[in-house]
């Protein structure tokens, strides 16, 4: 398996600063295509910050600075000539709290398509349906597409947000603790979905939940104090961590 892996994204010597305080230290790692990579570590370890550097979402926070490279499709997405809008079209994101727009279910999913210039009604309808099916929520919403997205339950809202991200057909999906605001049943649905989606997408997921990382991911990266401590195949990392720090964290001795 190892030798067939194609790298989708690489971070090279990535440093990140909020003003003067450094949040990431010299992070270098590859993300394989069509795999789920989990980023784990205690709160404040930089895993979410790292995730948000991959689609340049940190750009919108004033006073932040990046050093190093994120290579995607052989290009550094932080090169001055890169169009950040294009980067985000190809690298989608699902956030910690479900954040549907205050629009109808249909318009919520269609939003990304419309801003990308798709106005044909038939095509819109087809792609919205396809995305909702891919996010395993179609059967629950197909009769209420004109109702407000905010009328859905939290778990449904999060799957709607996944559908919305899928609609513009990104290559990579970043997920920032996508199930942490959800109940166990909704969480289980999201996890099943993640495993299904990796056939078509490269997925990078930040999670606080060790069991979740073990259940859904192929590769796990353990972060601590802004540094990448250990990176490995998930089953190996969880059963035979190489470093004491990793072992302490995954066995719950600190965190």
């Amino acid at each position: 398996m190892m030798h067939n892996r194609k790298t989708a994204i690489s971070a090279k010597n990535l440093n990140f600063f909020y003003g003067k305080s450094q949040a990431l230290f010299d992070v270098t790692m590859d993300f394989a295509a069509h795999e789920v990579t989990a980023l784990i570590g205690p709160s404040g370890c930089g895993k979410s910050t790292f995730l948000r550097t991959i689609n340049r979402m940190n750009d919108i926070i004033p006073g932040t600075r990046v050093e190093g490279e994120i290579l995607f499709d052989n290009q550094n997405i932080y090169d001055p000539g890169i169009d950040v809008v294009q980067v985000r079209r190809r690298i989608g994101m699902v956030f910690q709290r479900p954040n549907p727009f205050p629009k109808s279910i249909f318009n919520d999913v269609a939003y990304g398509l419309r801003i990308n210039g798709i106005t044909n009604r038939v095509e819109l309808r087809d792609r919205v349906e396809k995305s909702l099916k891919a996010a395993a929520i179609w059967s629950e919403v197909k009769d209420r597409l004109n109702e407000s997205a905010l009328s859905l339950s939290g778990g449904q809202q999060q799957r709607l947000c996944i559908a919305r991200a899928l609609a513009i057909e990104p290559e990579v999906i970043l997920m920032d603790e996508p199930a942490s605001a959800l109940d166990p049943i909704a969480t289980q649905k999201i996890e099943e979905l993640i495993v299904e989606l990796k056939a078509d997408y490269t997925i990078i997921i930040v999670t606080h939940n060790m069991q979740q990382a073990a259940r859904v991911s192929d590769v796990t990266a353990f972060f601590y104090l802004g540094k990448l401590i250990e990176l490995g195949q998930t089953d190996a990392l969880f059963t035979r961590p190489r470093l004491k720090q990793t072992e302490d964290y995954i066995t719950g001795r600190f965190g």
Partner: protein
Amino acid sequence: MNLQRRRKWTQFLGLLCIRLSVTVIAAAMIFMVIFLFINGIGVISWDFLTQQPTDAMTRGGIYPAIIGTLYLTLGSIIVSFPLGVASAIYLNEYARNGRMIRVIRFGINSLAGVPSVVFGLFGLAVFVVYLGFGSSILSGSLTLGLLILPVVIGASEEALKSVPMAYREASLALGATKWQTIRKVVLPAALPGILTGSILGVGRAAGETAPIMFTAAAFYTKVIPDSLLDECMALPYHIYVLATAGTHINETRPIQYGTALVLIGLVLGINLIAIVLRARIRRRQG
């Protein structure tokens, strides 16, 4: 035990003060409306609302003043709304905090504190004389528009601030540009708030006398204005004229009260329209 009792007592006193304040404010408001109603309702009739004033304004109606005030109010909205919302978008979405922005903010806040008669003189100097619009609906609308601009900017900024960051992030993460995000997500979500806040400004524009007395309002016009460059009558100015400048101040008292009642009704009507509009937008967004 003693502490318990004292806490209960202060709680009771605090609540009493708050309740009293609310009661005083509500009472003042209700008293004013009732007073105007009792004194003004007598002259209100279909003819009063639809006829010209006659006999040196001691009889007849106030139709031209109603139309004039509607024009001026609408004009001031058309002037201030786009300018105000655009400024608020710039200040809240684009501008980074710097010296320049602080100066601009200071300017806007100062503008809000400028007495309305100064706006009137400014309008006279700039719109009426310098730009040659004359005393006209155009000059009056521009002057009133500037007067309520700080209110519209303030309301719009508050409304934009209250749009959750999560909406912006969601939109940007889908590959929307900043402008697409503002136009399609942030503005629609902020619109009810923008409307609510701007109502205050509109109410003020409808009731102001000083800014229009040099720039738009006519003592008396026979005709209903048919061009932006015509003068017009206006309700607040009509009240002012009848109550101070006429030769029949006492005889026209009922007309003054009636006009004031109509003015209050008009402002209330504008507010109602905005409230209904806001509710409809909210319902559409769910």
